[in-house]
């Protein structure tokens, strides 16, 4: 029996990625990282800024996402996100710019705690990308 399931990443403009032979996906869910294997229970969750890791037979792909929703149902995982970048192709300038913007926003004292949490998450992730 195969242990593979389907994954589809779509953003508003197009279908970003679609794979049929995925064995495991790790997503940065709202309440912590979550690994999804075949026959996972149906779930809907939010994403926070982080790295999506997609494992297929002998390959591992990584993507940076800023926000989004995931739905897993009938062995098919859908990720809806408005901003996603493949880690191999991500632009360093963009990363640095995002860090700066995020830090600027963080310095505003009037933002909600939840937003603050998300932004600091984002900065951490972006910095870790940069250091690699």
């Amino acid at each position, binding site marked *: 029996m195969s242990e593979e399931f389907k994954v589809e990443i779509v953003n508003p403009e*197009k279908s970003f990625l679609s794979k049929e032979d995925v064995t495991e996906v790790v997503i940065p869910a709202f309440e912590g990282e979550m690994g999804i294997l075949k026959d996972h229970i149906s779930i809907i969750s939010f994403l926070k800024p982080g790295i999506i890791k997609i494992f297929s037979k002998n390959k591992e792909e990584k993507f940076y996402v800023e926000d989004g929703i995931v739905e897993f149902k009938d062995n098919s995982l859908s990720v809806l996100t408005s901003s996603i970048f493949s880690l191999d192709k991500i632009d360093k300038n963009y990363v640095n710019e995002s860090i700066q913007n995020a830090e600027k926003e963080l310095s505003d004292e009037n933002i909600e705690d939840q937003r603050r949490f998300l932004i600091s998450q984002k900065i951490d992730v972006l910095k870790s990308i940069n250091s690699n």
Partner: protein
Amino acid sequence: MASLDDLKKRIVSVKSTQKITKAMKMVAAAKLKRAQENAEKGRPYSEKMNNIILNLADGISDKENAPKLLAGTGQDKIHLCVVLTSDRGLCGGFNSNIIKKAKNYFGKVLGEGKTLKIITVGSKGYDQLKRLYSDKIVEKISFKESKNANYFDAEKVGKIIIESFLKKEFDVCTIFYNKFKNVITQIPQEQQIIPLKSSESEGSTSEDNYEFEPEEDEILSNLLPKNISTQIFKAMLENSASEQGSRMSAMDNATRNAGEMVEKLTIQYNRSRQAAITKELIEIISGAESL
């Protein structure tokens, strides 16, 4: 009968018009291809989004406390209509089809004694509606600067709608746009986005229970505003594909008509030229005979 010179001038002018319509058709065809691709690529996102929300809405246990964006305000007094049209003309019945559909709806709403508010997106819609409904238009938005429909613009419209909803300025929100079917057919659509209509879910009633993280309510209240932007974005994509398709077929027709006209005028021109020559000949011959 028009003189030879006049006819000649007319032929030249029709020909140059034909050149323009032909060029516009080519441009529209090229743009259409891209717009159509975009529209088709954008569909999965909005469909998935809608599905997730409908699944969530079905599963929500506490209907009373459901977010207002989903359940509505419980009233049905003020209708907000968002009419999405193009910024440019010369695209056949594209804009008037949307306007016609919208006007029908306006008539119904006003006939029932409810309050109507209109937001127009795209300048052509505003131009056509301002004569009859200028006092009802609360906002006009135009994205003339942006070349293609992009999500950023859609989000702006979405924000305006949500803000005014939170201020309780309307109860029901409907958007009007053209759905792209193929180059010749575009179907004007009305779609209610607030409160969300669940009747559109076609048999996809989910038996299985989802696990939610975080809680359903939180997901919903985060997702609903996003969904509105997404639906508007979808409408914008469909619209831009429809606009190009409609323009292409309109310009194709215009080119063909111009061709027919040139033909007709040319025949007329040749005939009158011949008539003039014959007349001159007769004059010469009868002149010679009388000598």
